[in-house]
């Protein structure tokens, strides 16, 4: 392949990289510079819903990816499994999850996951969240263990 042809073929790839760079710059400025926590990043209720849904379907790895780094280090897969089993023994298997907004202040927030279980129970699970590197992360499982 001649240099000219290789360069011509490279041009679309460079254009893609330029577009990707521009897109990342826009989101970076919005999330990190303007402290946007809802538009270009998943809002707390969305993170809470996804976290509980992944827990309910026993996808421990993807569920742990939602945890804040300092929390994730202290919560291995066994801890997630134990918490879910305790919840299921009490209320039944989680069948539906819907995220709801909660109070938000600075780099902390609460969101609620409204769950419907196999026993027909409807419970609201409070989920604490922390903002880490512009992304909302789950800060603990106490909401799941202390469901009224």
């Amino acid at each position, binding site marked *: *392949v001649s240099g000219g*042809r290789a360069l011509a*073929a490279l041009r*679309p*790839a460079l*254009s*893609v*990289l330029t*577009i*990707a760079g521009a*897109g*990342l710059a*826009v*989101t*970076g400025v*919005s*999330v990190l510079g303007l402290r946007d926590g*809802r*538009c*270009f*990043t*998943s*809002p707390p209720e*969305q993170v809470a819903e*996804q976290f509980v849904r992944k827990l309910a379907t026993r996808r421990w790895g993807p569920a742990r990816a939602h945890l804040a780094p300092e929390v994730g280090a202290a919560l291995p897969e066994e801890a997630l499994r134990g918490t879910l089993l305790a919840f299921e023994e009490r209320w039944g298997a989680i069948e539906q999850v819907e995220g709801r907004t909660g109070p938000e202040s600075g780099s902390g927030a609460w969101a609620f996951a409204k769950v419907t279980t196999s026993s027909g129970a409807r419970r609201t699970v409070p989920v604490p969240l922390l903002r880490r590197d512009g*992304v909302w992360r789950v800060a603990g499982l106490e909401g799941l263990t202390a469901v009224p």
Partner: protein
Amino acid sequence: VSPDLPHIAVRAAFGYVALLALLRVSGKRTVAEGTPFDFVLALVLGDMVDDLLWADVPAAGFVVAVSALTLVHILVSWLKYVSPRFDRVVSGSATLLLSSGEPVRRGLRSEHVAESELEELLRLWGVPRERWPEVERALLETEGHPSLVMKGPERPAARGDLEGRPGRP
């Protein structure tokens, strides 16, 4: 009114602009006249927009995923362009469905085309069953479209047809 509506609007506009720009540089084939894989890629990109719209993924994740897919697509298209062998491996080759007016069973079987479907494909080309003997070859191209090669018009042999041919007595 949900306080999230303006965010949905901004995310939709962002996704629209990003996809428009990326599809523009990836070439026209992704949507029109593409291979089945081009079509699948367009569907995957559409699903990614859905995730962005409802904030299932952060916008940065959307940008990285869509750009990476587009880059790989451009790379594969380029490799297909420079290497016919790679093109055959990735895109496959046209399948012969009809030869000299006769259905080719092997081709029909490999593409899961019933003879009634072949009839339909050829009818779309204006060739009903009774005109099949006029067809030299009917192929199913890699894009899924049929193509036809009709037999040339027959005429009696004329003096001069063999002039200049090697081995002329």
